[in-house]
């Protein structure tokens, strides 16, 4: 056989080999991207995350999610984000704003829920003014419930000095028990721990957070800016997961409640009661966030709460919110 025969054969063989290698490479599935996501202890507001984990929505998007937490309150979660122990998180709007005001490089990229917190009290308490000199617990200073307690006090011409406020002293799951044993007279916290006292008969809901501000934004999804810059597609995928989970909750409330029970380890009656007060939405209005920042600053200036953020921290609220809130 002449060399003229072998050359085309060799060339063909080489081309076939290269093609099979290329085909092999394109058939290899891409490695899932790992994203560390934080959340709060037993917080029903973070049900979209629980639903996404239970239903495998992250895997559908090719995301390897690593859950970090749970955290007792938003400020602790924001500390972890600051220290790069988290990439993204479900957290209250107030701690996210607080962290951003402290120059933490983060962005608020989606809503998670509106409303859904409340003030549970002993049955003998008939109005906010009855809380004068009484013991009231909230999550840590800087949490949204701490701020809303301040708003409630302010609207009743009171301040935190008129009550015995215990912020961050009792973990949210322990608050219903503390009310039942009489250690505290009231607590302002996220669902389902407000509902717990109602269902157990230990207390009542004196005020819902929607009574203070109807439709107020509550929990949001945040991301570290450096993570978002390097992983745009991953962040976009997590947002798709969040939307899909929120739509699932709207379309399948019964299924969502079962998942809620699983993650919070609370009974069906408590979850049913809590669901009445939580609205799930991925929308987040910048004007609402601006209003919230103004409220936090004003509450500190009037002495309703100890100042958390001052106008020195956020001299231009519009610019601050426009920079931090990037909801698509």
């Amino acid at each position: 056989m002449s060399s003229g025969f072998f050359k085309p054969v060799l060339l063909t063989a080489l081309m076939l080999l290269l093609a099979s290698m290329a085909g092999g490479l394109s058939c290899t599935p891409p490695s899932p991207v790992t994203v560390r996501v934080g959340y709060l202890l037993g917080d029903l507001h973070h049900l979209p995350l629980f639903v996404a984990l239970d239903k495998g929505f992250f895997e559908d998007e090719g995301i390897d999610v690593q859950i970090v937490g749970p955290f007792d309150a938003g400020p602790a979660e924001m500390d972890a984000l600051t220290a790069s122990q988290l990439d993204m998180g479900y957290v209250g709007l107030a701690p996210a704003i607080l962290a951003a005001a402290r120059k933490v490089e983060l962005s608020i990229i989606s809503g998670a829920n509106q409303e859904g917190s409340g003030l549970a009290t002993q049955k003998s308490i008939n109005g906010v003014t009855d809380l004068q000199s009484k013991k009231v617990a909230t999550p840590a200073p800087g949490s949204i419930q701490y701020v809303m307690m301040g708003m409630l006090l302010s609207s009743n011409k009171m301040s935190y000095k008129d009550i015995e406020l215990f912020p961050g002293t009792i973990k949210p799951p322990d608050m219903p028990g503390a009310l039942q044993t009489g250690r505290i007279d009231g607590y302002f916290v996220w669902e389902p721990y407000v509902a717990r006292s109602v269902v157990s008969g230990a207390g009542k809901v004196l005020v819902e957070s929607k009574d203070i501000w109807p439709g107020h934004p509550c929990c949001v999804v945040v991301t570290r800016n450096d993570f978002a810059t390097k992983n745009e597609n991953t962040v976009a995928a997590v947002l798709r997961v969040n939307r899909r989970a929120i739509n699932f909750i709207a379309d399948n409330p019964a299924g969502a409640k079962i998942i809620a029970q699983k993650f919070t380890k609370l009974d069906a009656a408590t979850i049913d009661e809590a669901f009445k007060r939580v609205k799930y939405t991925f929308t987040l209005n910048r004007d609402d966030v601006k209003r919230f920042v103004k409220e936090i600053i004003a509450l500190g200036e009037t002495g309703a709460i100890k100042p958390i953020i001052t106008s020195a921290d956020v001299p231009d609220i519009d610019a601050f919110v426009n920079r931090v809130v990037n909801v698509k």
Partner: protein
Amino acid sequence: MVSLPQIFPTPVAVVIALKDLLIAPGPQGVAWAGELLGNTLISLWRVFVGFSIAAVSGVFLGIIIGWWPRARDLLEPVIEILRPIPPLAWIPLAMLWLGLGFKPAVFLIWLGAFFPILLNTVLGIEGTPKNLIEVAKTLGANSWQILFKVGVPSATPSIMAGLRIGIGIGWMCLVAAELTGSNSGLGYMIMYYYSTMEAAKTVAGMLMIGIVGYLAFIGLKKLEDRMLFWRVSA
């Protein structure tokens, strides 16, 4: 991470935080003292009460156990079961039994300080030189006189050492108790500023804890030197 002031405040930031905390209004009842000194006074009061109860109960029980073998046989098993339980493990029960604020903090300080004082008192009493007891008997002293004129003075160096250890542990227990069960005091103040991401103020509070702890130690040492003036130093 070192470049994150929210987590690692600079020394200058801590000094500024100290200044701010000195002039900010203090907690209810001690608003005049400023936030830093006001919370310090609250913590000190809790330590004073808890430590006083621990000192009296620890020395009293220690003398009984150290002097009377029957009391030791009866009480030692109970003490040896309770002693290894870390005081901090009692925090949830302390809050459940005693509520929030002053009482659980005092309880935890008492718990932390009690055992070192008790054990050092027992050791001191048991270590009373036998020859001194014999001499006292020879001179006609009765049991009570031997206990209070020979046993207790002989045990005083050990008792003072126990008090110094006790105040250190009691102070640490106080801070832990205030981190979770209070709305005032240095421990609470540290937790508060951790939550509002003001690390410089958190560090300022920790610095104050260290300073007060050191001053308490020095105070007790001076008291010990005055009481034990007869002791020949090495």
